[in-house]
């Protein structure tokens, strides 16, 4: 499904903490095409989450550029809020708003940002909830839901902004094993519908099956990127070979 139509282009991204004492990202470059699903894998501490979180500037890069629809988001004069509206993000710990109902969680941003009227936003929210089979939970508060339900609603909350790309930061890592499937199924459906996705994941089966391209990171650098079949079956980088021997 990959095309040459670049949606995101990361160029020489560096992220340092503590005035350069810790280097989280060391000269990372990456492109994501429109409609492409890119999986980021690697050992913990490899920088894959930092790279993903840099894409919508939840992490402020030390240097380098992040082009999204042709605009360099790392440029301080850019109104990042406008661009974030088009980049949905899903977190490991769901981060649903506990003081709001499921419906309000989904409609808050579109209404507040005046992208939709309350009626339009609610109609869309019901439609999305219906699609994931949770329409009857619209009036519930998040603490009444299972982990899998929370994460699917968090995905729907991001979708309600009609984003150009969805960023997933270890979306199934905090879930009980029996709930991983329902979340991955939803993500698989999104991929099929042509959504551009960047997914940090430990689910190698999912990466192999759904991703168009897999990126392996270690020590803050991109060590190898390839199609899933090539990367998993013929890993070249020794760190990747070592990593795969442990996780597969």
């Amino acid at each position: 499904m990959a095309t040459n139509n670049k949606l995101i282009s990361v160029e020489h991204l560096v992220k340092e903490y503590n005035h350069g004492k810790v280097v989280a990202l060391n000269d990372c470059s990456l492109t994501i095409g429109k409609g492409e699903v890119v999986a980021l894998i690697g050992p913990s501490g490899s920088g894959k989450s930092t790279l993903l979180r840099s894409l919508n500037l939840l992490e402020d890069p030390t240097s380098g550029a992040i082009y999204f629809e042709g605009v360099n988001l790392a440029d301080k004069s850019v109104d990042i809020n406008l661009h974030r509206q088009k980049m949905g993000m899903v977190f490991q710990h769901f981060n649903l708003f506990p003081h709001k109902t499921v419906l309000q969680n989904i409609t808050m941003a579109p209404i507040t940002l005046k992208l939709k009227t309350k009626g339009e936003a609610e109609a869309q929210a019901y439609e999305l909830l219906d699609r994931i089979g949770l329409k009857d939970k619209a009036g519930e508060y998040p603490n009444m839901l299972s982990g899998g339900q929370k994460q699917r609603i968090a995905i729907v909350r991001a979708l309600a902004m009609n984003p150009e790309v969805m960023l997933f930061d270890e979306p199934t890592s905090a879930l009980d094993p029996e709930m991983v499937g329902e979340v991955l199924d939803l993500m698989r459906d999104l991929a099929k519908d042509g959504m551009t996705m960047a997914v940090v994941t430990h689910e190698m089966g999912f990466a192999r099956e759904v991703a168009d391209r897999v990126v392996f990171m270690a020590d803050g650098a991109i060590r190898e990127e390839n199609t899933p079949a090539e990367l998993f079956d013929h890993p070249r980088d020794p760190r990747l070979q070592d990593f795969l021997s442990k996780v597969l």
Partner: protein
Amino acid sequence: MWSDLFANMEPTSFFNFSFLPKYLPAFVKGFEYTLLLAVVSVALAVIPALLLAIMRLNKNRLVRGISGAYIAVFRSTPLLVQLSIIYFGLFHYIELPRHLLFGFIAINRFIPGVVALALNSSAYVAEIFRAGILAVDHGQTEAARSLGLSSWQSMRLVVLPQAIKNVLPALANEVVTMVKESSICSALGMAELMYAAQTVSGTTYITLAPFVFVALIYFVINYPASKAIEAVERRMRRGDKQ
């Protein structure tokens, strides 16, 4: 007869409550004055405190510094000193009507008292709010920001509602503190509960017991109140577990 009960007591006796039938109304008025001082000053402190707390968490060092300085000054000087400076300083220049509120609260003394208590309280409440804001998981802000909300929208719609709910018990505790602390206003002639005790003590020459009596009143109000707040806090903590 009530006074017969205390016939054998000295003016310095601990429980010489013989003044009560005659002076009870003075204590009732004093009690009302005290409650009004405490509730109104904490209520007035909430908005400035919220502002101070948000300033304290601002990225700008100057904004942070202004709020920090205010909090430092009001937390590091005695309330009686603050009260005196505000009463004799600020309200020397502000003419207040000599009007009586509810028939016994002199506006020209009550307002300076409330202002001083509110300014003092806002420094403490600011720290309560700051802790409450910091206690909200950072993931909440990240989720709100990732949807495209501005930092102020995230604060207002996502962080503050959760923070305020968390600090309600601490805010109620601040009222309890103010019920006690406001006794200092008696030094400037505000007719609150402590002032009633001083007046009765001076008028009847029963030196000790009026103070014992007001101590009982303070205790009977504050102890159950703080126990109730503790119970609410425990229930809230249970409700938070997901």
